[in-house]
């Protein structure tokens, strides 16, 4: 990072140096567990289009302005892992992403950025998922995640297996982090939802696969919890995940789960998919690490059917 810092200094903006000093505090600025407050801490919506369901969910949570303040920078992490079209249910729905961008900008966000460390060729993924165009049209900046030079070393102090990771600089630089995974089948992780989606903000995923995948997913979810998790369950890939073979793998579920609690979002989404959360190792491991609330009975849930 020396070269980068050198350039930054010579540019004399001092902008990022200032903000990076400021992050440390910001990471924990938004309490994940909002049970002390009145209102819901998990919203589940069914039966609408992605944008409509998002509007309803955010409304129920008290508006996006609860999470995004004026002049803040926002990073949105959808799942853009695969070079396939939205109907294949492998990537987050573009309509959902674009609506979210609009909400953030309406709330006064200074800048909204979007990226993913894709599995297939990143440019094709960005393009064919429809997310690049949708996000740009809505006013977001679409940022690449294709090169190691975007990623910076971080410690994962609470990690049991995963002690270090390389994380995309946008996650380190942005004030607000919104996680927008898609719910789908995944033979090795069982399901990929919110916690698994964070594999797309790190560089070296091979290490995870080689060193107890489930424990690494749980470990990393202690690192920086997203301020908000929006689980897209509109097109749900029921088998052959995470890439899928054809549209026949997909069931139209027209659902959305939104929660500031990543673990709770995963538990609810797993149930929606038709799986027992306890059958998914990383959910149990994350519970042991205190990532969030696993028992949905302890949450205040708003269930909306459109």
């Amino acid at each position: 990072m020396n070269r980068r810092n050198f350039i930054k200094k010579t540019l004399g903006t001092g902008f990022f140096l200032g903000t990076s000093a400021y992050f440390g505090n910001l990471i924990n600025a938004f309490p994940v567990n909002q049970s002390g407050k009145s209102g819901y801490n998990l919203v589940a919506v069914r039966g609408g289009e992605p944008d409509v369901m998002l509007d309803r969910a955010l409304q129920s949570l008290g508006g996006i302005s609860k999470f995004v303040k004026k002049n803040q920078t926002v990073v949105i992490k959808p799942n853009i892992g695969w070079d396939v079209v939205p109907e294949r249910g492998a990537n987050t729905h573009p309509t959902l992403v674009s609506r979210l961008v609009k909400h953030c900008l309406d709330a006064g966000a200074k800048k909204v950025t979007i990226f993913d460390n894709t599995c297939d060729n990143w440019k094709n993924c960005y393009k064919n998922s429809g997310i690049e165009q949708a996000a740009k049209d809505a006013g977001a900046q679409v940022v690449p995640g294709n090169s190691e030079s975007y990623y910076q070393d971080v410690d994962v102090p609470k990690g049991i297996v995963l002690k270090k990771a390389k994380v995309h600089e946008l996650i380190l630089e942005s004030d607000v982090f919104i996680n927008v995974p898609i719910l789908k089948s995944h033979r090795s992780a069982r399901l990929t939802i919110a916690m698994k989606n964070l594999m797309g903000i790190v560089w070296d995923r091979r290490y995870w696969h080689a060193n107890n995948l489930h424990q690494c997913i749980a470990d990393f979810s202690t690192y920086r919890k997203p301020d908000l998790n929006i689980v897209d369950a509109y097109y749900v890939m029921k088998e052959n995940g995470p890439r899928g073979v054809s549209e026949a793998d997909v069931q139209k579920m027209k659902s959305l789960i939104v929660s500031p609690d990543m673990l709770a979002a995963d538990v609810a989404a797993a149930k929606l998919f038709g799986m027992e959360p306890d059958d998914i190792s990383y959910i149990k491991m994350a519970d042991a690490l205190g990532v969030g609330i696993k028992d949905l009975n302890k949450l205040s849930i708003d269930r909306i059917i459109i």
Partner: protein
Amino acid sequence: MIRISLSLMFFVFLLFFFLDFANLFSEHLINFFTYIQLIPSIIGFINFQTPVFAGFILIILFTLFYGRVYCSTICPLGALQDIIARLKFFFRRKLKYKYSNGQFVIHYSIVVLVFIFSVLYVNPLLLNLLDPYSIFGKISHALFKPVYIFFNNIFVELLNCLGIHLLYYVDFLSFTFISFISALVFLIVIFVFSFFMGRRYCNLICPVGGLLSIITRLSLFKLKITKPLCEGCGACGGVCKAECIDMKNKHIDMNRCVCCYNCISVCPTGAIGYKMVLKTSADKSVTDESRRNFFKSLVGFYILGLLSANSCQNKDRSVAIKKNTGLIPPGERLPVSPPGSIGLEHYRNSCIACHLCVSNCPTQVLQPSVTEFGLSAPLAPRMDYSKSFCNYDCVVCSQICPTGAIKPIEPEVKKKIQIGKVRFVIENCVVYVDRTDCGACSEHCPTKAVHMIPFENDLYIPEVRPDICVGCGACEYACPTVPFKAIYVESNVLHLVASLPEKSSPKDDAGIKDGFPF
């Protein structure tokens, strides 16, 4: 001026095709410029006999009319040499050339040697090493592209610091020692020739220059000095980079002339221009009859060779298959050739390693080999699954390959081409050894030729179905085991047809009214 701008256009466009990492240019534009590159076009035509590869006929026709127009207008290496020669301005003020005697014996011997080697023995090694377009490609890709990417990345950093993310970083994956060194050697050779001796490379070594020189002997129009107009100032000889203007006899040796037309523009009296030459009025003062006949027969031999090339080639290929495959001991991995290349034999007989596909491969899975494809195709691009994997829907390389070594295919055809088969080594697998979940291979597989089946303790372990595998290498790339992968692609010597993956049973939309299971 027109000649220089055309030449610069070819040079700049071809250079950018080799530099570009973002696939900014359509394959049609690329094909437009590579269509009339002589050697690639001839190889393509020998292989497929379609108009797609008939550009060489245009060049030969041009040459039959006006001489070696190719050398100063279309050839990117020619333009590179001219640019290097211009560097002299920084050292000496003048570009001054002197007439030199032609070394046709050496030059034409090289042409004949290349011909025998590449057509009769179906071994493109010498073309790989000597074809100017291929040399230009190798130099551009191995030496210029890293510089281009370096500056791109610096620029990206600057923009990123300002919070602008319009451009993106690129990691240059294809730096290999061999391709770098060989390109460097090529560049040094070209530099020395062009800096000190004008277009000597074109008139001593280049097989394209040689072939066109032979054809020029039959050309209809030749540059001539009109003797009554000539004042003998010698200006033309001083600017002739082919060193082919003999001031004593006021004669231009058209066989070496690269048609740069510097002489025409520098001549104060306008004494130089094209004149029609009838074969009967052979210029006896320069060429005697026996020499002429020798060259005529050479040309005849060449054309005959070209015509019979296809049948010859097929015969030789069947021999070559046995020869080359027999050399590889069992257990050793063969290189995987890209989809569209039919098989290893076709590929190694047709690829001259210009690296245009390496430069344009969106995933950078195509990487220069060393001699994996055999000595006939050093540096030919191979599928390197340690660096990346082949995109399921992508056919870029097949669309731009100028020689037809990778023949043009459509995405739907590509999905059925099996360039290799998946092999699973359970003893290397994370799931088997560590008893933890992994499945990276199956995640990446576009056809589910690698799928996960139940294993002990609720684990899932990969199972492979080679029949629906296309050999894209995604599994091998994603596999985290070191030093040896638990899953890899075994090359198909001849590409096969993969069965299409089965679709799962379609699912009804979920019942919305059911509400939530929590």
